[in-house]
């Protein structure tokens, strides 16, 4: 059986664009840092300089090779959910259910396949809009999709399979993507939890949590003491709201 994850027959475009691994800006940064380190190292003419020069050489190599190599990330994630394949399929197939996913409304799909990915909060937030089309599907079995534009390319297959015994459904996802960023920006994004694999993993986990328990576990908005400098910096990692958003509330006799 072949599952189609390709929009080329419909739009006559290339299957996946050949956009390169790094953006031009990142290439310029990498190449200039590499050149500077190499020259500094060569001028010093000692062991420390040699180390510097080889580091610079590596950066030059990365800068050139990233510029030539088309980038493609891929990942596979699976969860077992204690519901029947039909229940899980129906849940996942309904775009309204995707609005619940991820603690903040970061990722939304509407009925027409328009995907909105939102980074940051309030008016300072940035929105990426993308269009997703279902390329192939069989109810209760699989859904394949592909993005319809080149800004953030992704495509993959969601599969629903009965798990052995009384374990429910194996919900798996295999996908490929090209993020609109080079290696530097990708690493920074991964640091704040915006790595595509991690986002998809947490999305599936939350489908499981919602289907099994009716809620997504959270600590956002719970009481915390003084965080200090390091703790404040790590709020992103622990999904904590900024202090200004924490509304004081009093229960009794305090």
């Amino acid at each position: 059986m072949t599952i189609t994850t390709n929009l080329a027959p419909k739009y006559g475009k290339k299957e996946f664009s050949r956009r390169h691994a790094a953006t031009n800006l990142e290439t310029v940064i990498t190449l200039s840092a590499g050149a500077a380190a190499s020259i500094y190292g060569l001028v010093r003419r000692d062991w420390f300089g040699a180390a510097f020069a080889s580091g610079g050489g590596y950066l030059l190599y990365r800068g050139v090779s990233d510029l030539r190599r088309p980038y493609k990330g891929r990942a596979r994630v699976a969860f077992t959910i204690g519901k029947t394949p039909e229940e899980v399929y129906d849940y996942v197939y309904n775009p309204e259910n995707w609005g619940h996913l991820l603690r903040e409304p970061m990722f939304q799909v509407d009925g027409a396949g328009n995907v909105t990915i939102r980074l940051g909060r309030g008016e300072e937030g940035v929105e990426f809009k993308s269009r997703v089309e279902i390329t192939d599907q069989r109810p209760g079995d699989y859904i394949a999709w592909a993005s319809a534009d080149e800004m953030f390319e992704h495509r993959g297959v969601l599969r629903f399979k009965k798990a052995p015994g009384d374990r429910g459904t194996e919900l798996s996802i295999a996908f490929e993507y090209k993020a609109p960023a080079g290696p530097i920006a990708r690493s920074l994004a991964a640091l704040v939890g915006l790595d595509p694999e991690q986002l998809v993993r947490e999305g599936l986990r939350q489908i499981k949590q919602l289907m099994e328990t009716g809620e997504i576990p959270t600590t956002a908005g719970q009481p915390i003491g003084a965080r200090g400098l390091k703790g404040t910096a790590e709020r992103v990692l622990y999904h904590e709201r900024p202090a200004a958003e924490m509304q004081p509330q009093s229960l009794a006799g305090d």
Partner: protein
Amino acid sequence: MKALCWQGKNKVDVERVNDPKILNPRDGIVRITRTAICGSDLHLYDGYIPTLEPGDVLGHEFMGEVVDTGSEVSRVKKGDRVVVPFTIACGQCYFCKHNLWSACDNTNPNAWMLEKLYGYSGSGLFGYSHMMGGYAGGQAQFARVPFIDVGALKIPDGLNDEDVLFLSDIFPTGYMAAENCDIKPGDVVAIWGCGPVGQFAIRSAFLLGAERVIAIDRVHERLKMARAGGAEIIDYEEVDDLVEELKWMTAGRGPDSCMDAVGLEAHGTGVAAAYDYAKQRLKLAFDRPTVVRQVIQACRKGGVVSIPGVYGGFLDKIPFGAAFGKGLILKMGQTHMHNYTEKLLKHVEQGDIKPSFVITHRLSLDDAPDAYRTFRDKQDECIKVVLDPWAQPVAA
């Protein structure tokens, strides 16, 4: 409200923080009437548990009155007096349905952190670092309790707070550790560590039919309490070879089961203990597994090693050959609390055990920073500290 917040290694403060509120439909809010400091809180105090951050509210042994419930809560009502188990379980995943409650799939919001470390994540815990869920703990005046219908144990009138509080952790933990020993008539159980969990393990072993319990420690008041519970005692600092001593006491058979109720901050004596200290100091190791080595060495052939003591990382120089050669059964892990709370409440109601025997210090929440130090340094014959979050400080 007032809450005890971790502020770094060896530093905890009572701070004013926001009151907790309902965040999810199955949450409840409990006004805490009694809370305790657990031996495992000392691992946090001493800075051994990663992903604990300044400002985190500690405490996972607490009880109180339900003052608010979310829209999907039905079993528990406002006004109920409840004890809250330290592990948080959803009640609906595969693991909860198979009575492996502390392995719950759905209660750790930071499951990815533990997945990186251990492959898979267990349930969320109260007040025990972000990788364990980052839930604010119960050494405070109020606490938010997720999935309160699943966990909270309703307490009938007529029972003291102090006699039911330990159903939140140490009594079930000691009991499960003893149950893991698979005790049969005539069995001798050896228990390393006479802290609060060890004390409950001693009494649980007798409840489960052990013939003899041998308790091992070096702190006199703890050994005294163990003897009061019916155990024979060994002060390990006064014997040359602990394994030989146990062999002697069991006429060459060895204890039928050996329990490590100590965990990652074992003291011990001799070269092995010094080696563990040095490695931990140099940050080459996270745990001091002195006791794990001893329980494996001392246990009889085909016996059970039960480990309720907490470990976190990679353990060094474990005599795995001895474990294999003797065909040992190893059992361990966070307590599956929800299997035990009802059952042990019955034991308390029937008067089989009076859990308040273990309390040595009754203080207010404001006294907690001093109490952590006293408990850690085993000063003032401290074995178990219970705090009243609403009382005036005792030591003011």
